[in-house]
Each structure stands twice: as C-alpha cells, then as structure tokens.
C-alpha cells in the first residue's frame, strides 16, 4: 500500500513539474501560483520518500526494494538509514533533496521575478530528469513478485551511525549546487546585467560547500574506524569524485568574494557554477554505473549508467551551449596588480582547477586506457599524493596572507612583520625536526600549517579591534576558516608522515610495548548482539597509574554471512592508538597497531571550517 502511495506521489510531482515547464509557454502563471506549485511538488516528493521510509520501518517485504535491503531484526536507526543504503532509495533521496532546495529557493526575495521563475524552471527540468531516471531504471516501489516474510538484510559494513547520516549530508552538498547551477544558467538566459543573483548564489554555494565538507568528513571518519586500514583517506575513486566538486566549490566560494563589480569574473563564476554541478552529476554517473571499482559501487547495471550519462550530457551540454552563446561581455577590464587580493584569488582559482583536473585525470585514466588499448590498469594512491599535494602547496602559502592583501593597491600592511614571522617559524620547525625525526614532507606540512595559523591570528589582531559580539565573529570569519585549514594541515601531515605501524603475534595475557606504552591483551570474548555476533579482544593500556580499556574485534552477521572488522581506537588529543584484531593460529592472535599522531586535529580543523561555513551563510 505504501509503495503505491509513494509511487503515485512521485509521478504526480513529475506531472506538476512538467506542467510548470509548459505553463511558461502556454499560460502566464503568476509568481504566486508558481511558488505554490513548486512547494506542492516538493511536498509530494517528500511524501513519496517518507512512504519508502515507512515501508522500511514496518518491514513491508511486499516492496521488492525493502525485501532486498532490509531485515526485520535490524535496529530501528538502520531500518531508516537502509532506505538510502541502496541504489534506488539513494536516488529518491537525491530527488527529494533537489526538491527541498527548490522549496527553500522559492522563498527568495530581492530577486528579479523573471530570473526567479527561470531558475525554478531549470530546477523543475532537473527534477523531471532525475525522477524519470528513478521511474524507468531504478524504481524503489516495485512490488515483490513472491510473498516473503523476511528480507535479505543491509550490507553490514553500512550499519554504522556515522554512515547512516553520511549520504543525506553528502547529497545535500552535491544537490545544493543545482541551485547555483540553475541560477547561473538562468542569469545567462535572462541576459540581465544586474549582479543581485551573485549574492544569492554566494549563499547557496556556501551552504552546499558546507554540507559537502560535512559529508566527506563523515565518510572519511567512517573509513577511519570501520575499514580498519589505519588511515582515513585512500584516494578511492568515490573519494576523488566527491573531492572534485568540493575543490571547484571552494574556488566558486572564493571567486564569489570578488563580485564587487568585476565583470570578468562573472563569466568565470558562471563557468564554475556549471562545472560544480556537472562534476556532481558526473560523479553520480561514475559511481552508479559501476564503471569504477569502489566500496560504493552498488550492483552495476549498464542501462542506469547510460541514462545518467544521457542526463549528464543534456544538462552539461545545454548549459555550456547557453554559456558560449550568451556569455556576458567584458565592459570593465580588471586592473591586475601582482600583489593584491584579486590576483591572489585568481592564482588560487587556477591552482584549484588544476588540482581538480589532476584528480579527474587519475580517476578516469584507467577507463580511457581500457577503452583505447584494452589494457586494465589502476592508478595508485601515491600518484595523487605526489601530484595533488605539490600543486596545492603554493595555494596554501598564498592563503595565509591573502586575506590581508588589499583590494586596490599593491602593498601589504606590516609586510616586514609577516616576512620575519615566516622565516622564524621555518627555522624553528627545521631545527626541531632535525633534533627529532626529519622528514621533508613533514617539515613542509608543519611550516605551512603553523604559518597559516599564525598569519591568520596576526591578521585578526592587527586589522580588527577585539570585540565580543557576533559582528566581530562575522568579520574574522574568513580568518577563522583559514585557521581551521591550518589545523587540519598539521593533523594531516602528522598523522600520515609520522604514523607508526606495529605487528604482533600474541597469546591472551601477553604484554607488549607500543611506542613506549605498556599494553596487555587482556581477554578475548564473544557476545550476541541484536543482529550480529561480536568477537572482542580487550586491550588494557597502562597510563601512568591507571589502565584504559580498548575493545577491538570482528562482527559476524548471520543474515548476510559477512564479517566486519571493528577497530579499537584510544583517542587522545595528541594521538590515536588504533588496534586491529587479525587472524588466529595455535592460540596466537595477530594484532596490528597504528599510532597516529594528531589525528584529532584533522577533525577539529574540519569542524572549524564547517562552523565558519554556517557563519558565512548567516552573514549578509
């Protein structure tokens, strides 16, 4: 029953959107009724999505999708998150978020009414394309042809609280760019020269970027403690795909700062807006088509891939054609000064685009080679590390001082102070690392991180009067965001360069020493949980006079006959001690231990960036 309701709601929503597109040519709808119809279509789409959630909640196995991906003894939260833990449901989530964005956008004031209508129409078109994709190739409301009383269960690796909210947040990021995209294309078609839409685009692109950051961070945090590989970023194709719109989105957010009357960048901004959303769709295509080998590939199906590819070509092709035909003329050439904010932002944009292209190349290179030569290759993580990171380094250097550069002149205030400061930091870190453990990447990363933090703090102190109110917070927001980046860079550098790895073969009761810390493999026990069996090794870690407990082990899920590893992590502010329980032979257990220094700084930095993102949205 809920399947039928859900399907009908989805179809009705498409009907409304088709009506909207035709109404532009047949009858002149007033903006009020236009808004109401957009909101109605959003409510219908949400109703459709909620009815799918309902089917999952009550374990309605007459729905084929529920039967394939759920099981009646799953905990409540995973019944709900199971809705988007599969291809069909996740596409419905995608469309729901698309319509939620349209819903909120319909409340925008201070915008030319025709521009608003056009934007919503493009949004409707996107809604129709993706809804048709769902209806024809991946319908989550199919009825099960046989009567069953139990489902097949959710992939156990997805049964995790972090991963339950990862897809909605990530999609909120991806799909958010649709509004920016629609606005940009609409402004081209509208051919008006006013720049109001840019400040609206700025808000939406910042919202999307913030959600995307949160989504990616949740995903990599999940990979960190769930996959048990000791790291948090693996240059997996899906990670790369999410990183591309993220970097382009970052470039977009920064170039939107330059709006203040600079026509030349308007062209660039429109191009970036199109690129961001195109990369989001392209990512969806690569993941869903199963062309790329990855943790995230759901069952591959050629027709699905083709359909999304078609949508991708229509949307990107159409927008690029509009872009080429109608792009605004330059009537105000920019004054390029070498050392000023504009050129710093331009260089930063170029760097980000180069980095995106590098990642894109590494990700799709295997596909191109296979098509051309029939050889199958894979591009390893080291490629990305040794290409993307050096490309980004000048950008990071620039970032530390860019906020204090002036808009008009060629001078930096207090330049001597910054130069001395930079040299001092470099010398201190060089000496310090010679005395402890020298690694050139480590030195570069640490200098960059510390320099960004100190330069940003100095900039705050030198350029603003300290006050304790929200206005002050808004003013120093960009600097705060950059401090977040600096903190994250220190975390990333330390945790990857100075990571230590230890292997042990242990009996229960054995003592071992990790990085000068005494650890005991206390006992190994099994326990029955709601839908899995847990095997846990208990490690006792001696800290001065007290002991800390860490449990690490494996879960066995009888429904899907799968085992997942559960890493045990002792979180401390300056390091994580990361235990993985391996195989057993003759009473001896294999235990792998990683010591990851300063991982917590990565998450702290990202949280700061996300907070700054939200403060920036509130900012007028």
């Amino acid at each position: 029953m809920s399947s039928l309701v859900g399907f009908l709601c989805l179809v009705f929503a498409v009907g409304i959107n088709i009506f909207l597109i035709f109404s532009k040519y047949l009858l002149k709808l007033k903006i009020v009724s236009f808004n109401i119809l957009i909101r109605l279509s959003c409510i219908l789409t949400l109703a459709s999505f909620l009815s799918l959630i309902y089917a999952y909640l009550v374990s309605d196995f007459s729905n084929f999708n529920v039967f394939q991906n759920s099981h009646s003894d799953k905990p409540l939260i995973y019944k709900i998150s199971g809705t988007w833990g599969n291809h069909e449901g996740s596409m419905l989530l995608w469309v729901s978020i698309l319509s939620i964005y349209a819903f909120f956008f319909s409340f925008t004031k201070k915008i030319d009414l025709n521009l608003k209508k056009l934007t919503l129409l493009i949004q409707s078109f996107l809604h129709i394309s993706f809804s048709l994709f769902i209806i024809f190739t991946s319908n989550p409301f199919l009825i099960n042809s046989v009567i069953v009383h139990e489902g097949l269960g959710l992939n156990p690796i997805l049964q995790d609280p972090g991963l339950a909210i990862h897809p909605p947040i990530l999609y909120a990021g991806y799909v958010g760019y649709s509004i920016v995209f629609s606005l940009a294309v609409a402004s081209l078609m509208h051919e008006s020269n006013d720049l109001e839409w840019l400040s609206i685009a700025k808000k939406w692109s910042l919202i999307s970027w913030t959600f995307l950051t949160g989504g990616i961070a949740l995903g990599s945090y999940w990979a960190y403690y769930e996959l048990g590989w000791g790291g948090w970023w693996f240059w997996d194709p899906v990670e790369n795909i999410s990183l591309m719109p993220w970097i382009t989105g970052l470039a977009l957010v920064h170039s939107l700062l330059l709006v203040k009357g600079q026509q030349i960048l308007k062209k660039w901004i429109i191009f970036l807006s199109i690129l961001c959303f195109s990369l989001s769709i392209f990512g969806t295509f690569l993941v869903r088509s199963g062309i790329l080998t990855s943790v995230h590939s759901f069952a591959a199906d050629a027709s699905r891939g083709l359909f999304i590819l078609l949508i991708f070509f229509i949307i990107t092709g159409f927008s690029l054609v509009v872009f080429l035909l109608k792009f605004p003329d330059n009537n105000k050439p920019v004054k390029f000064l070498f050392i000023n904010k504009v050129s710093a932002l331009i260089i930063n944009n170029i760097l980000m685009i180069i980095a995106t292209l590098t990642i894109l190349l590494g990700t799709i290179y295997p596909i191109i080679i296979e098509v051309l030569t029939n050889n199958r290759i894979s591009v390893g993580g080291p490629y990305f590390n040794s290409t993307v990171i050096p490309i980004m380094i000048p950008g990071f250097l620039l970032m530390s001082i860019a906020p204090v550069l002036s808009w008009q002149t060629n001078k930096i205030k207090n330049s001597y102070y910054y130069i001395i400061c930079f040299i001092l930091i470099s010398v201190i870190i060089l000496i310090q690392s010679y005395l402890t453990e020298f690694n050139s990447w480590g030195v570069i990363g640490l200098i960059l991180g510390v320099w960004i933090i100190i330069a940003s703090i100095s900039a705050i102190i030198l350029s603003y009067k300290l006050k304790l109110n929200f206005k002050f917070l808004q003013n120093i927001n960009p600097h705060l965001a950059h401090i977040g980046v600096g903190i994250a860079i220190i975390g990333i550098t330390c945790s990857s360069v100075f990571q230590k790895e230890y292997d042990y073969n242990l009996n229960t009761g054995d003592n071992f020493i990790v990085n000068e810390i005494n650890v005991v493999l206390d006992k190994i026990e099994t326990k029955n949980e709601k839908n899995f069996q847990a095997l846990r090794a208990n490690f006792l870690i001696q800290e001065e006079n007290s002991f800390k407990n860490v449990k690490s082990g494996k879960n066995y899920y009888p429904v899907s006959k799968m085992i997942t590893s559960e890493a045990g992590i002792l979180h401390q502010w300056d390091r994580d001690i990361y235990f993985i329980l391996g195989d057993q032979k003759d009473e001896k257990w294999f235990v792998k231990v990683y010591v990851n220094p300063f991982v917590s700084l990565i998450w702290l930095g990202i949280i700061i960036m996300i907070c700054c993102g939200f403060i920036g949205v509130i900012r007028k």
Partner: protein
Amino acid sequence: MSLRFQRLLLILVSVIMIFVAVLLILYNGRKNISYFYTPSELASLKIDIDKKVRLGGFVEKNSFIKITASSFKFKISDDLKSIDVAYQGLLPDLFREGQGAVIEGYMTKNNVLNATSVFAKHDENYMPASIKKGLENTGYWNKNY
C-alpha cells in the same frame, strides 16, 4: 612596476604552475600505474621483477594455507591457470576461498606473487568491474553469480 608588466607576471606565474602540474602528472603517472592481469595472462607473460602488478581472480578452493596468524599462502585462479601468492599482514574481512579477490604486488623469480595488498569483494552482489571483464573473456563468468 607598470600595470602591463604585472599582468604579464600573473600570466607567467599561471603558465609556470600549469607546466609544473603537467610535469608532475607525467612523472608520477608513469611511476604509479599498475597493470591488471588475470592468472592466465600473468602466467603467459614475462613480468619484470620490480614492476608492480595487480592480479584478479578467485581464491582457489583448498589452496589457502595459514603459516602463522599473519602470513598466508594461497592460489588465485581463473580456472585455466593459477598463480601462487604469498602475503603477510591483515587479510580483508571478505577474503574467502572461492571468492573474488584482487592482489597487488611484485612477481618473484620462482613465479610467486609477493603481495603488498589484498582486496576482496565487498558484498554479495559486488564484483570489481575489472575482474568481471577478465572472467567474461575467459568464459568463467556465471551470470547468476
């Protein structure tokens, strides 16, 4: 500095950055690409000892030997040929006999693949596209798998 000179400088910097990026891509691309083979392909080819390769196929039934809790020997097969693999470290959770796996590593002189990493199939419906392709070519691929 004149405006014109500064603009030139900006363009110059951009060109240099792009040039460096291209160099980096070419240099690292050559170093970090590994070729993917099925066991029959690997058996028929002479592979350099210091070249990283990827091997995809099924873990042969009854070939898995646990030497210690952390070092293993097994065979990867495509039903025509099989390749001996030696591995030290943690095996992925889904590694099982009869299931698909991808091995990355270096060939040794006595035709054993010294694995640096082992990847296993991620769920019951999931099969890396590269393995599927290889197996379809050799006729082993079973659609209902």
